């Protein structure tokens, strides 16, 4: 386990400048995706309509059986 840990640590430590820049972009991207977009804009819609699968199913059923004009 220690070898695996060191393998990653040394890999990151010896990373060239562009590699660090790329990792910065990855981290910023993941923060935007999971801490901003997912939390504020992309909540699970059906969870707001029902807590159990039965409630969710009833909601979708109502939606699908109601043909809109």
């Amino acid at each position: 386990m220690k070898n695996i840990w060191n393998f990653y640590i040394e890999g990151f430590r010896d990373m060239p400048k562009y590699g660090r820049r790329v990792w910065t972009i990855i981290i910023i991207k993941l923060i935007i995706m999971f801490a901003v977009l997912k939390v504020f804009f992309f909540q699970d819609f059906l969870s707001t309509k029902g807590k159990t699968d039965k409630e969710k199913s009833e909601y979708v059923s109502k939606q699908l059986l109601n043909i809109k004009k």
Partner: protein
Amino acid sequence: MEHIDWGLVDWSRAQFALTALYHWIFVPLTLGLSFIIAIMETIYVKTGNPEWKRITKFWMKLFGINFAIGVATGIILEFQFGTNWSNYSWFVGDIFGAPLAIEGIMAFFLESTFIAIMFFGWEKVSKKAHLWSSWLVAIGSNLSGLWILAANGWMQNPVGMQFNPETVRNEMNNFWDVLFNPVAVNKFLHTISSAYVLAAIFVIGISAWFLLKNRNTSLSKKSMIVASVFGFLAIIYAIFTGDGSAKEVAKHQPMKFAAMEGLYQGQRKAPLVAIGFFGINKDEHNSQEQKFAFEFKIPNALSYMAFMDINAFVPGIKDLVHGNKDEGIISYNEKIEKGKTAIDALAAYKNAKKENNNELAETSLKTFNENFKYFGYGYYFGKDPHLLIPDVKISFYAFHTMVGLGFYFVLLFFLIYMYAYKNKFQKKKWLLRMAVWTIPLAYVAQEAGWIVAEVGRQPWVIQDLMPNIAAVSQIDQSSVQITFFLFLAVFTALLIAEIKIMLTQIKKANISNTNENKGGTE
């Protein structure tokens, strides 16, 4: 009765399309370049020539940048399923969830583990172990695509499932039918082979740029030979798999096929429009036939391409909308009636179950099952059936752009290999310039392919079973608009960052002077 919020449907579609198109800028290079790198490293391990190690490391660097910037951009599509397309997400149940879960696990364990060895392990593991890692990254990333495309193939041709009227959900009853769905298999093979083509063009284009600048000539020549052979084999395979995909489309999605060819009136011995331009039409309504201002046709070719028989009947848009009794095609209005019957029968079944009326429940369920294959058409009850026609111009132009570029790529790979073999690269400046400018064209072909696949199947989210108007969540349109522009900004920033970092690395690349012993990706 509520009204359809067409604005919400259109914005939700636009957001999904934007995300998918941007995601697909990053993915094909990862899929193809990983194999080219593995081939180059194999040559290094076999020959022991350190130059091949430097070449491998250079392309690995560009692969790493692309992989890192593109990684996880596809997860946003999954966010959208749960928020914007919740009816769809529920309706597809585990059929979509299972392949995506397998993809997630495989991608995480296979790619992330072996990518670390690939980049950090040059001096820490044996040559062979490193080579294995490179091949496993290539195989792993391509297998990730398999699961995603199996899910997409199911949407285009739903098989291997049973609808559960209690839960209003489809349940997988045959995993192998879903995985080996002929639409999915062809789609996967065509998608990955076209990704290999893009990666080969990427390598050839950058190598050509080096040769034009008279830099890294040995790297460029060697890379071009590997990429041109790889690309040539890939494009030939892409043509065969594309033909296979077109046959599946003709069989399972005849409206998409008709739109791809701009065919309104079906016929036997149908000609293929090899080149065509539509006239300008003031009334752009779907019911209006789009007429060609110019077309170059190949006689009988469409019938042969679709059904391997020049006498086969290829239905046109009018045949599909209005029906054609002679050819056994029922009209959209009849399908809409049957779909409405299925929806009403499902409602009656659910009410009967609540009232414990088992007899009515049984007869309703029987009616529902008899008409289930037209279920999605029911949502167009009382509406113009022409709404079921996809955008013909976009489908036609995207299809012909993809095919035209595909044949151009065959020629390019052939010329590159021929001059590489004769060692006459650097004298052919026009060919080198052409190779550089082909890089963006390879991306255009990729995106055009997705536009054909996704615009051509509109309005279906799941072919014949669920149209986009039934799949969309009743959320606030403004939130979809806000996130659309947020994505546009984030993805554009990522793309600019990728191009900028890559260009910097390409410009400063000096392969002959590279210190082999430093770092994993230097």
